[in-house]
């Protein structure tokens, strides 16, 4: 589908330059960045690494000036052996994961946004982890649990808003 010349350049460029990618991601909406995290491992890593930059980025000179600035960005990261465990109330069809802990990594001033995301209460974490905890191990944890979802919320999101259906 793609011409090989483009493929090489795409590899070189979009795979290689973190800050170039960050510049692009700051111009995307929440849902688009979430899609980008799944596009490839590399991008997932960049989103995680540049999360602080992304969450603080002013809504850019894209057509919609009215878009509210982002309040925070979080990564939902599922791992077995974490000290922090949040009970997962949400029932999924595949309930096998319900026994495992969730680490919620928040960038930004979490304390002033005791939000609920989906059915996870971020406030229940107590102390917000620092940006440094964003080391993106997400794709390297052993199967079957390496699943990370990046989420950020516009400032206008109300307390207790559920992101999920």
């Amino acid at each position, binding site marked *: *589908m*793609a*011409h090989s*010349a*483009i*493929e090489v*350049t*795409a*590899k*070189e*460029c*979009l795979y290689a*330059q973190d*800050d*170039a990618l960050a*510049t*692009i*991601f*700051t*111009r*995307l*909406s929440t*849902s*688009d960045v*979430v*899609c*980008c995290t*799944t*596009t*490839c*491992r590399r991008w997932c890593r960049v989103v995680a690494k540049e999360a602080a930059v992304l969450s603080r980025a002013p809504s*850019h*000179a*894209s057509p919609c000036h009215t878009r509210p600035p982002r309040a925070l960005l979080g990564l939902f990261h599922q791992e077995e052996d974490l000290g922090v465990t949040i009970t997962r109330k949400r029932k*999924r069809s*595949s309930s096998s*994961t319900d026994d495992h802990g969730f680490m919620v990594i928040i960038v930004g001033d979490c304390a002033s946004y005791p939000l609920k995301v*989906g059915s996870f209460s971020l406030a229940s974490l107590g102390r917000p982890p620092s940006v440094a905890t964003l080391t993106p191990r997400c794709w390297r944890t052993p199967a079957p649990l*390496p*699943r990370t*979802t990046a*989420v950020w919320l516009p400032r206008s999101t109300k307390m207790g808003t559920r*992101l*999920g*259906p």
Partner: protein
Amino acid sequence: MAAPESGDGNNGAARMVTLISSDNTRFEVEAAAASLSQTLQLTILDGGGGGGDGIPLPNVDSATLSKVLEYCIKHAPAAANGGAPNATAVDRAELERFDNEFVNIDQSVLYSLIMAAHNLEIEGLQSLVAKKVADMIKGKSPMEIRRTLGFPDPTPEEQAEMNAHMLEYGWAYE
């Protein structure tokens, strides 16, 4: 293509500098235009790039560099005016039109531009190309993004990972 007059005449005869691309092509441009690049600006302020020596740019090939310089030359007068309180709406509209046309290019050229803009630290060009790529990504699914940007097809392993991810977290994408 005529440059607006406002940018000229500020510093008498415009100083020229020479830039040398990775494939040894020499480009002579006004110092004011090359100074849009933060990387080059210091060298130029130090008096480099004049006369016979020129500034080598081993990371930028000639095709890309000429494209970059096209942008710089067009934007230099406005930058010299410091964001231009006296720029007319016509000038601004003209720049905008130029920008839109400028990024209407082949993907491979676009990617080279991204790299060059970051190497040379040309802020305006960085955001211009970033906006273009962002527009290509907007509203697409992960697979569509890969296809649009010409990424190699995912390995079966990656594909399985993506599928499993969507199954579990599909709600986050709605």
